[in-house]
């Protein structure tokens, strides 16, 4: 943590927009709440969760149990389902009224649809897909003016090749979206109590300019984020049949199956298995990369894994630069050897 010497001038709260998935709370939003609590403690201000829509009473208590001091419940029949225009208008008027110092949301498709719209309307700075947030200072190189106790927004850029620290020194609220799976889900405290503030939104029918006609849900059958072991396959497997080897090894290890973008595009595996910048970010205890060369977009999604074993025919493949164990060889021969030897050892 960066040590601050200056005194805090912030009076505004730290806000987290809590997304809903049908009648439940999005877990990604609760992860953000845990980080918001840490930031607020540093700034000595309150954390508030913002929730929109009907039947929010039970959910408000839930949000308090995950770390919010206060919950603003925005009510309106016109906020029943998510629409960019109505939610932007409702949240902007709440922000202008209450003046939080920080506004955060999870970088889900909904968060990435809504946050830029709000930032554009309020003309404030927004940083997308942060992987970490801190409180620190920034000195303007031109004016020499030092800004204390501001939000440091840390995110990868250039396809994960650099890590940038971004600040919004002048505009408020300081806005950021946070990549899913980057923050720890806070422990739930069922005894926690807080304030619930109900606000009737002045949204009108005319503010809803898009309509949702139909929704097709894909059940999350794979749980990559929580898996302690992942066996992942890439284009090096060559065929859909060979990808079956990855599944066999995963079954033996009690692991989940992961895939690279290239393997998904080639039809070896379903989209829900995709790991990397456009897929899911994972950090299992053990990651076994089979026939994966290691495009930065993939590495960005798994390089935090505890132990990485890479199997690839090309000794120059970038995956070896982040691996703990490297096997230069053909996956079609190496995986059967892994299966055979593991069976012998676990007997």
């Amino acid at each position, binding site marked *: 943590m960066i040590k601050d010497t200056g005194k805090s001038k912030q009076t505004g709260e730290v806000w987290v927009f809590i997304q809903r998935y049908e009648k439940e709370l999005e877990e990604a939003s609760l992860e953000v709440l845990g980080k918001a609590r840490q930031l607020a403690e540093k700034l000595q201000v309150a954390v508030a969760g913002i929730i929109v829509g009907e039947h929010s009473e039970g959910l408000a208590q839930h949000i308090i149990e995950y770390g919010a001091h206060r919950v603003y419940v925005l009510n309106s029949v016109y906020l029943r389902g998510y629409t960019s225009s109505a939610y932007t208008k409702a949240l902007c008027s709440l922000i202008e009224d209450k003046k939080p110092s920080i506004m955060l949301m999870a970088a889900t498709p909904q968060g*990435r649809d809504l946050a830029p719209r709000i930032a554009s*309307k309020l003309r404030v700075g927004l940083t997308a*897909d942060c992987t970490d947030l801190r409180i620190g200072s920034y000195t303007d190189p031109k004016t020499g003016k030092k800004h204390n106790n501001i939000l440091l927004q840390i995110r990868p850029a250039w396809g994960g090749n650099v890590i*940038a620290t971004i600040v*919004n020194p002048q505009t408020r609220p300081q806005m950021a979206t946070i990549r899913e799976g980057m923050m720890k889900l806070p422990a739930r405290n069922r005894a926690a109590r807080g304030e619930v503030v109900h606000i009737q939104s002045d949204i009108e029918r005319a503010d809803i300019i898009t309509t949702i006609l139909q929704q097709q849900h*894909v059940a999350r059958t794979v749980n990559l984020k929580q898996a302690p072991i992942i066996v992942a396959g890439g284009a090096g497997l060559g065929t859909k049949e060979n990808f079956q080897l990855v599944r066999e090894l995963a079954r033996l290890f009690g692991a989940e199956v992961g895939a690279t973008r290239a393997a998904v595009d080639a039809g070896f595996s379903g989209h829900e298995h995709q790991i990397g910048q456009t897929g899911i970010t994972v950090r299992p205890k*053990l990651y076994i990369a089979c026939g994966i060369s290691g495009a930065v977009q993939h590495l960005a999604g798994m390089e935090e894994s505890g132990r990485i074993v890479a199997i690839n025919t090309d000794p120059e493949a970038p995956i070896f630069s982040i691996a703990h*164990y490297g096997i230069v060889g053909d996956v079609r021969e190496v995986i059967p050897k892994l299966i055979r030897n593991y069976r012998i050892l676990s007997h």
Partner: protein
Amino acid sequence: MKYSIIVLAKQVPDTTAVTARAMKKDGTLNRTALPAVFNPEDLNALEMALQIKERFGASICTITMGPPSAAEILRQALYRGVDRVVLVTDRRFAASDTLATSAVLSRAIQQIGTFDLVLCGRQAIDGNTAQVGPQVAEKLDINQLTYVEKIEQLHSEKISVWRDVERGKELAAAKLPVLLTVTDRANLPRPPSAKKIMHYKKARAKSELTDGGTGAHRAAKGLLVEEWDADSLGIDPAVCGLSGSPTRVKKIESVIRKGKTFKKIAPTDEGINELLQELIQEYSFD
């Protein structure tokens, strides 16, 4: 012409081309080794526009904001069949963040006049922010539909699209005009047409001309790329470039993909047996 479509495109360093050769000895990225390309998802947006043109009839204008060399992607757009291209360039636009960029682009769109659809890629591969599309839509005060995978129906006043929203798919409808951000699952962008390459390969923007000429001979042949700066857009320089950008970069650190303990394992039964024993001893399987 039935629909008026504007496609927003960006020239980006090809961050997908990072190979061992693009890495320096210290494990950091050699940025200059990366070629400049048409942002991949903007090509999907362009393809979607071209398909609308073929099916319903449309005029397509592609706008890019960037240095004079970004005119290369406008030629790429011409090679694929767009009707008009505009380069938005000015030194005062340099260092624009997404908010300042959206201020300039939305002003350029207003300068074009009336339109039915604004299409852009979901995100650019250099920053991956996915912010400029929605920020432009807000400045234009129009609808937005993000993460679009497919157009279901397009009528004179209304559009319905399938959106790819992580938990599944969503069919959403909006009145025109609307801004769509298009994902790479939408289509397979077409290659340039050889005939159009022959026709447009000498198209240049004025600031690309090194001879200091006015480009009059190119203009006469329809080969002068339209070019707008802050003055011709009538935009306040205070809302663009660094002065119009609320965000500041405090620090940039290169990611060093090196330095972990690395152990090479032989692809033999002995080697693999040894590896598995080590992993078991480290409790990796527990």
